């Protein structure tokens, strides 16, 4: 396998019309060796974007540049991009070995050269023992490894992954997710990875683009998208829970305040007038007594719902309005939080995102 850095990709003003899918004015610039995640709801045209990058659809307008070279009109077989679909799309009439060798054979490599590369990729992905099997006999995780091997063995300049983990069960998904991270580091690949799963995007992506209705609505590092969603859609999509709308007005000490129900929330912002605010559940501290802390916002409320999700519990507190905080199961027991109990919540003014 090549260990050099992958290619640099630039997309300029790309528009695609394909049946019910429409992409509009997509601009992206992906650096060499970057792991770039495109995040968006299912059926939002993310696959069409990947396929257009691979040359499988003709764009209506716009240009695609690979290492500065315009490839907008190049057929897919000349682009040197590896493609992996969500449901693997292995050739059902070929063995695992023949699946992986497919691209090598087309390149006219000699028998020994093919065998050498197969052995190498077999080791890399730990699938050497599956080579003689038909794809239909493999588990989902094994099939996805084979699909990855098939794409990687031809040393692509760019690896395109179309929801590669979403058809797998949680355990396999997690393992393959780690594997993708490792492959990317070891091979120095440029990766464009499409997903609807925010956690996957955070775990893997150097940067991510959020797509909505055929447009890119935000691009940035995961932390930034997570903390400062550009639109309400992004906020809801990445799982921000406490979203409120109101009219900002100046408060004391240089803060602004947003009146909400019975209380006023202090925020730090340059904005004025009507605005959205959001607070991430993990920024909200829940206690049985008023906290002495630097948190500017502290309110008394009543627990109206406790929803346990695995190791965590989401606590909804009606002040009003209703804020949702998250605690570990351990805290849940220590604080003996139950519906109807009176509690205090607190969060810092700087933890409030205004948009």
């Amino acid at each position, binding site marked *: 396998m090549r260990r050099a850095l992958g290619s640099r990709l630039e997309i300029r003003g790309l528009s695609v019309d394909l049946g019910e899918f429409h992409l509009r004015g997509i601009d992206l610039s992906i650096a060499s060796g970057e792991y770039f995640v495109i995040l968006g709801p299912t059926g939002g045209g993310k696959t069409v974007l990947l396929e257009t990058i691979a040359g*499988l659809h003709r764009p209506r307008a716009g240009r695609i540049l690979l290492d500065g070279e315009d490839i907008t009109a190049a057929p*897919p077989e000349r682009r040197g991009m590896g493609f992996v679909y969500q449901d693997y799309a292995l*050739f059902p009439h070929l063995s695992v070995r023949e699946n992986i060798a497919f691209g090598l054979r087309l390149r006219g490599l000699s028998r020994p050269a093919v065998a050498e590369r197969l052995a190498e990729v077999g080791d890399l992905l730990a699938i050497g023992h599956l080579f003689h099997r038909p794809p239909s006999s493999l588990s989902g995780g094994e099939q996805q490894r084979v699909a990855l091997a098939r*794409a990687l063995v*031809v040393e692509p300049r760019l690896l395109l992954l179309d929801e590669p983990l979403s058809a797998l069960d949680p355990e396999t998904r997690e393992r393959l997710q780690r594997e993708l991270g490792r492959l990317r580091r070891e091979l120095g690949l440029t990766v464009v990875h499409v997903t609807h799963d925010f956690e996957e995007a955070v775990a893997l992506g150097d940067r991510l683009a959020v797509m909505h209705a055929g447009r890119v609505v935000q691009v940035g590092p995961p932390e930034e998208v997570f903390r400062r969603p550009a639109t309400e859609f992004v906020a809801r999509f990445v799982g921000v829970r406490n979203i409120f709308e109101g009219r900002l007005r100046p408060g004391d000490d240089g803060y602004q305040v947003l009146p909400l129900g019975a209380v006023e929330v202090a925020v730090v912002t340059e904005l004025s007038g009507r605005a959205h605010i959001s607070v991430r559940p993990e920024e909200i501290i829940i206690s049985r007594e008023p906290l002495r802390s630097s948190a500017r916002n502290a309110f008394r409320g009543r627990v109206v719902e406790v929803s346990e999700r695995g190791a965590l519990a989401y606590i909804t507190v009606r002040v009003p309005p209703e804020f949702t905080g998250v605690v570990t199961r351990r805290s849940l027991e220590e604080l003996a939080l139950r519906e109807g109990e009176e509690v205090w919540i607190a969060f810092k003014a700087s933890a409030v995102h205004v948009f």
Partner: protein
Amino acid sequence: MRIAFALLGALLVLFVAVPLLWITLSAPPALLWQTLLDEEVQDAILLTFAASLAATVLAFVTGVPLAYLLARTDFPGKHLVEGIMDVPVVVPHTAAGIALLMMFGRRALLGRALGTLGLRFVSAVPGIVIAMLFVSLSFLVSAAREGFEAVDPRLERIARTLGASPWTAFWRVAFPLAWRNILSGMILMWARGLSEFGAVVILTYHPMVAPVLLYERFESFGLDYARPVATLIILICLATFVALRLVSRRER
């Protein structure tokens, strides 16, 4: 409910199976053997097989590409083309024969043009072939189309990203995956060609294919003379059909 359905369905199955069983079981084997040695019968059967095979090959070369286009692409007039490919099933066989005769007959434009090239259709083997082709091509086209539709187009897309040209992607991925359907379409088409009478008899009475020979014996000498020939033809057709079905099922 299943019992009522089974009884009704059994009526239909028996309606097909009993006459065929009866005609094959009631013929004395010695008479069948004697019929098989009749040179006229031998020639007719071989001619039928060969002509239908030729028609199937012609339809393979043109129909498989057409089926692929119908399965994979949208183009203006697609519905019209689909309709045209279904029409031969609907056109009465004798009328199809007349229509072909008007194109390929000795006095017709195309027939005369091809005649100067030495290709005669009336009362000649090419006439049998085009008659069989006309009435049976729908089977191959629709089976091949179904086969291609069942192949995930993303497999071909993956092949393209791996370096395959459109041709290579077709031959290495789409065609092998649709092959079972194509093969069974070819078998059905070939069998349908064998069975054709109405269109063939209009274009080419002589040389006689088996269904025409059978008709002639029935008309000239009556049922008792036609029976062994009919039995023999049915047996041969059934045997070939079953054998081909088994072969095509064993493939992968």
